[in-house]
């Protein structure tokens, strides 16, 4: 299935993209996606951690992703 990936902050620089469409196996959790991303974009290992937001809400690792989800890679925030 296809999802949209958004990259922010340092992850934009590491991956070299703001937004891409991404092919994922049909049943995948947030944790599965994190594992895949670390394989496919090994530079993401340069940061200590990142969170995932699905459709503009923070997502737990066991959330199951759906077709057309908008998935954001959220490196440690530093607003304020």
């Amino acid at each position, binding site marked *: 299935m296809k999802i949209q990936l*958004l990259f*922010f*902050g*340092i992850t934009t*620089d590491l991956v070299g993209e703001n937004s891409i469409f991404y092919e994922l196996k049909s049943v995948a959790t947030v944790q599965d996606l994190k594992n895949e991303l670390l394989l496919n974009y090994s530079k993401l290992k*340069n*940061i*200590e951690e990142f969170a995932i*937001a699905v459709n*503009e*809400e*923070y997502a737990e690792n066991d959330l199951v992703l759906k077709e057309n989800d908008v998935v*954001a890679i*959220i*490196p*440690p*925030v*530093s*607003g*304020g």
Partner: protein
Amino acid sequence: MKKSSIIITSEKLKVQDCYDFVQDAACGGIALFVGTVRNHTKNKEVSHLNFSAYEPMALKEMQKIAALALAKFQIHKIAIHHAIGELQIGDIPVIIAVSSAHRKAAFEACEFAIDTLKETVPIWKKEHFNDGEIWVNSHP
């Protein structure tokens, strides 16, 4: 009556705007926090900053903070304004303003809001130095 004002903008933030929003004839006190861009960080001189946001989600998270503060503390109104784009030394990245009948609640809600914003709202700060730049909080 609207109890919260949530804004992300690339215009200059104004303390007076936040004050005017929360001010109310029934309130006896207003607590404000104004973030300002410092000229140094960890002994290194900062030339300027750049803030970027995942804007729709950041607005939602700021709205959640406001709703939680209104539920948790005895306050009247709350304003949370954040700037994005390039900011110079002394410029204002963030303003929180809270009004209440009694001041303790305003202080507590104001501190709660800025503490939570710095933990949850998807906004990122890049510090620029004379010899480079760094995404804050992103390096182990």
